């Protein structure tokens, strides 16, 4: 915190642009050193050093500070936003004139407890201008209440209950199950990871709102995405927008020709994957997404795939029945392709050994599809489907509202929230850690 406070302060008040840049680089590099030392040195040591090497063993044994991936990124955001404030209006107001005040603001910005441990990643230009005296009358209690109830419902009722079934996605346990069960388990994990992380983010946003701070949405119904780029605009928005603002655009974004754009996408997604965890499987996961984004970009440039979901929904109103059906089929197909790919890629989150993920996919292909009447199979399928219904309904409701914005469901909202509270109190699963705590 001291380091970020000092470097950002001098970035702001140093007159010489060379020194400004030097302070900014020092701030970024020191954050990255902290992140790499604590988070990635065990990975590099286990990959490159020989067993028994004392330095390697020391590096492997270093404990991971809680929330390091989040607070170092926020530190980078503070330094970079301050540097950019020279040229761009939206970054102004990050630094106050007083050193002590700035230190206090930095302290609050980085250690603000609702999002300290697992995000959302907050950018300095979003948060610091909100630091001021807060009054109870200014709190949007309804917004906070809704966010917290949805968050706890997603985490405690959906994610914690599904997790007891997705336990089976663990080597070698999954090998005894039929292909159908393996597919349902994978689908369940996709729902679980969404409910777990979106739930956490929603709780954090609700808690922050209770203190008078508005954090940006971290999820925006990601499973309705009809393209990979749309998925990344809807999933873990704070990370994807951070990577876009602080890495993709500085690398040149899509402004330096097609080849550079593809390379940039790869770099961003590879590093984004590694950000999630110090294991090569995360890097492979990120690279998969990078590859998907690059292929999609290439195809979009060369083949006409139509527009994204919300625009299509708007055009439905004027479309003929035939073209509407065709468009609908296209939307469903594209959504399904994105969902299936994203879901398959989650395997690398659950199975950290790449080889085990391949065995899982192989088992889906070679095992039989019969479910039989066994209690355990019926329980896995039945419970995953049952607990997925609210998440599916949540996404469908969003689509419905997009298509019919004038429909008034508002009057039913209190009842729905009441049912969610009832479910949290009576039907929560066995508590488990948030998946993103490990990052």
């Amino acid at each position, binding site marked *: 915190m001291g380091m970020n406070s000092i470097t950002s302060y001098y970035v702001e008040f140093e007159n010489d642009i060379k020194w400004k840049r030097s302070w900014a680089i020092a701030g970024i590099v020191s954050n990255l050193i902290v992140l790499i030392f604590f988070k990635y040195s065990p990975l590099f040591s286990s990959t490159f050093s020989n067993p028994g090497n004392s330095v390697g063993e020391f590096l492997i044994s270093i404990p991971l500070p809680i929330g390091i991936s989040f607070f170092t990124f926020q530190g980078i955001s503070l330094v970079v936003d301050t540097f950019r404030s020279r040229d761009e209006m939206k970054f102004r107001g990050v630094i106050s004139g007083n050193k002590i005040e700035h230190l206090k603001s930095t302290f609050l910005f980085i250690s603000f407890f609702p999002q300290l441990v697992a995000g959302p990643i907050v950018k300095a230009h979003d948060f610091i201008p909100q630091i001021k005296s807060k009054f109870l009358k200014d709190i949007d*209690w*309804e917004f906070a*209440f809704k966010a917290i*109830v949805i968050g706890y419902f997603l985490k405690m009722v959906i994610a914690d*209950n599904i997790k*007891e*079934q997705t*336990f089976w996605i663990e080597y*070698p*346990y999954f*090998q*005894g*199950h039929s292909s159908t069960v393996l597919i349902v388990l994978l689908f369940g994990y996709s729902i679980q990871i969404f409910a777990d992380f979106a739930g956490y983010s929603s709780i954090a946003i609700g808690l922050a709102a209770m203190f008078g701070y508005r954090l940006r949405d971290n999820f925006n119904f990601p499973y309705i995405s009809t393209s990979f780029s749309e998925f990344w605009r809807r999933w873990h928005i704070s990370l994807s927008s951070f990577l876009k603002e602080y890495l993709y655009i500085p690398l040149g974004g899509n402004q330096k020709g097609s080849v550079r754009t593809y390379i940039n996408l790869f770099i961003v997604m590879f590093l984004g994957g590694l950000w999630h965890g110090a294991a090569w499987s995360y890097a492979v996961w990120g690279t998969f997404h990078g590859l998907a984004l690059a292929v999609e970009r290439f195809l979009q440039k060369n083949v006409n795939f139509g527009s994204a979901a919300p625009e299509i929904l708007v055009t439905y109103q004027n479309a003929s029945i035939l073209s509407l059906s065709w468009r609908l089929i296209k939307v469903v197909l594209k959504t399904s392709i994105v969902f299936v790919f994203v879901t398959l890629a989650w395997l690398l989150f659950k199975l950290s050994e790449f080889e085990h993920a391949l065995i899982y996919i192989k088992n889906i292909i070679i095992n039989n599809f019969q479910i*039989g*009447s*066994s*209690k*355990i*199979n019926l*329980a896995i399928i*039945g*419970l995953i489907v*049952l607990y997925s219904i609210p998440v599916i309904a949540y996404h469908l409701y969003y689509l419905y509202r997009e298509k019919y914005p004038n429909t008034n469901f508002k009057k039913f*909202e*209190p*009842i729905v*929230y*009441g*049912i969610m*509270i*009832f*479910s949290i*109190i*009576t*039907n929560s699963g*066995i*508590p488990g850690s948030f998946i993103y705590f490990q990052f």
Partner: protein
Amino acid sequence: MIRISIITAVSLILLYNLYLILIFDDKIEIYAQNISQDNLIKVQEYLFAEKQPEIVIVGSSLAAKLDMNQLKGFFNLAFRGRSIYDGFNIIMDRKGKPNIVLVEYNAILKPPSLSIFNDDIFGKIDRVIKSNIPSQRAKYQPVNLVISMAYMYISESKRHNDNHSIESDSDKSSLIEEDKIRVNENALVMEEEIPDDSVFKSSFTLLKDYVEHLKKQDIQIIFFEMPVNEAICDSEAHRKIRSMVKENFPSDEFFYIKPDECSKYTTKDRIHLTEESAIRFTRYLKAQIPAF
């Protein structure tokens, strides 16, 4: 909006509790949604039971297979996927104490679980809430009731149609898989590797502490062994466990149920008895108990 939501939630909770207290037939067999919940239900039933069970069984997933329909008045605190020490902890946590504790010693090398179920089981406020408000117990989760009733309905209609039990062969085979893979680590310990001496030492020190503690409260301790597959029944690891149990808990101070011949029983996965064998072994165990 907030007020209406809270009123709705409170009304639903009240109605649901009234349903559980006044209408729900407690004789309906409730199915847990998963193994962890099944264990949790067992713990809560033991801790919140009005009457202290006289005989309690502690053990691993092997003893969890015992047919409790035959052992009326017994309470089985053997948990699937957990160590025998969880059972001891639960016994100690209840004010009243049983007269007899049956200790299955097949899997005593499995270390104590890191978190003993959840803090909420042992937290004072939570315990008061869970013991007095039925909707707060794991057993009465709405989804449990729904799946149990659905299962009961399916069983009834299947029985009606097929004129035989829903527990078909395929049913059993899937349960075999379940146990086989869940307790893989136990199988490894007992079949292939003999753990380090330090593992034996620490396990027996711990077991002794628990047993001594119960003995001081005049609880009779009876050791027994669950039969396993004949091929591993006399493995080196099994022999070592047996001899160390006898060494640490001499037969002039402690009671033992004579192990039955493993060849009489069949297992699903070399260590867990089939349903049928579990029923027969329970019969054997029950026949041995009156001697004490």
